[in-house]
């Protein structure tokens, strides 16, 4: 099972186990990770699930779809090369631990 380590801007961390079929966004919401809203439940409508995937791991997750890229182009937190919408990060069986950083703001 993959573990996700959420790192807040103040450096505090929270680790969450990721069940099959569950996205990083849903795991964050279910476990009360602050700074990830996931308003639309993963329909690619809200972009309130923005995270930065650890730069060294960015290539180990599936690349974003065009739709995700379009939303990412205008997220309210700073856009970085490793920016992702966490509702699109799932099926990460090949990774033991994914580290994601929570941005300053979601909306």
């Amino acid at each position, binding site marked *: 099972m993959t573990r996700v380590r959420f790192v807040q801007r103040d450096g505090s961390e929270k680790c969450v186990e990721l069940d099959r079929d569950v996205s990083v966004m849903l795991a964050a*919401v279910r476990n009360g990770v602050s700074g990830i809203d996931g308003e639309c439940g993963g329909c690619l409508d809200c972009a309130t699930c923005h995270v930065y995937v650890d730069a060294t791991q960015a290539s180990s997750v599936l690349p974003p779809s065009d739709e995700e890229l379009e939303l990412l182009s205008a997220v309210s937190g700073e856009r970085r090369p490793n920016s992702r919408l966490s509702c699109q990060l799932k099926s990460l069986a090949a990774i033991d631990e994914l580290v994601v950083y929570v941005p300053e703001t979601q909306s």
Partner: protein
Amino acid sequence: MSGLLIIGASYAGVQAALTARDAGYSQPITMVCDEDWLPYQRPPLSKDFLLGRTSEQNLVLRDNAFFENKQIELVLGHRAVGLDLGTRRVTLERGNDLAFDQLVFATGSRARRIAIPGADLDGVCYLRSASDAIELKARLAAAAEIVIVGGGFIGLEVAASAAKLGKKATVVEASSRLLERAVSPIVSDFLLDTHLQAGVDIRLNEVVASFEGASPRVTGVVLDSGVNIRADLVLVGIGGIANDELARTAGLNCTNGIVVDEHGRSAMPDIFAAGDCANHFNRFCESWIRLESVQNAQDQAKAAGLAIAGSQGPYESVPRFWSDQYDVKLQIVGLAGKYDRKAVRGSVDAGKFSVFYYRDDRLVAVDSINRPGDQMAARRLIARGVSPSPEQAEDPSFDLKSLVTGGDKAGVLPPDL
């Protein structure tokens, strides 16, 4: 045991509890809800859930461990039926009382019932809760012809799902266009075309007179015009009503929802309301309004949670909403209300466009069809009171974001203009 009592455990209730706790509220927090389900997501009920793309399990937003961890007591399957503001007690249906120091109404809204002959027939359904959705999904699987009363968001989403499942779907709408109160005619027409192309029959300017049945089952829908449409399933989606009776009976000011200020506070200092059941003055639409959206429920509840914890953070986000029908992503930010000018960006024919609405030269709302980038930029523009000129909005090569990144660049209008 007193402390904070929250009635309703959906988006607003959960957010109020969580925000209050995270902001340092240290007294007990109890949430009562008449549904048996753990807090779950409602938007997918008419979309992915009906289509079988999301399981019941994946609807759940928070589990027991979450509430235990936050020391929030969850009382599910209990309905609040009485409120005494003097003694500060809420009575549950099954008799027991709960005392409170602060109370939050997060009771949401319910589907408006239709009052016409035949409304009680078996097969006349509504969609509000997960159990409604489970029932509708099962009935839809067995049905061939579904009639949807109401061309609003829920009606159109169910029509799209039914069409995708290969059912014959007919939408009956009383006004002259779809989503009349929410979007402009361009967007209504685009959606109409999309549904017609998917094989959905849409009857505009038509009112349903009665449902016919071979008792107990519904077999058809009769319109005022005399037309009779065969149906083995009917979904009524004619809007929502605030669940504000408990508050009203206890003496709180209610006008289409419980009237609250920018902190979600009612006229009584320790009584709050948030989400679908609350009516607030929205500075973006410059009027009192009751909104039904996840964003409104969560953001308003955050303001209430902060106020309860003795902190400050008024509710002043720009309203937003979305709807998914087929592969059409409709997103709305702001409230167009009475606009006096509009500008279209992108191509209606290509099914990718945004409509920018202006009132007194100010950008007040943007509807986007499959243009999420515009929508994201528009959220920030409206929130900061920055208006691109209609010419800039219409020019697809103009970068809307450039007006909000980099602060006060040339071309950015001060918020008061």
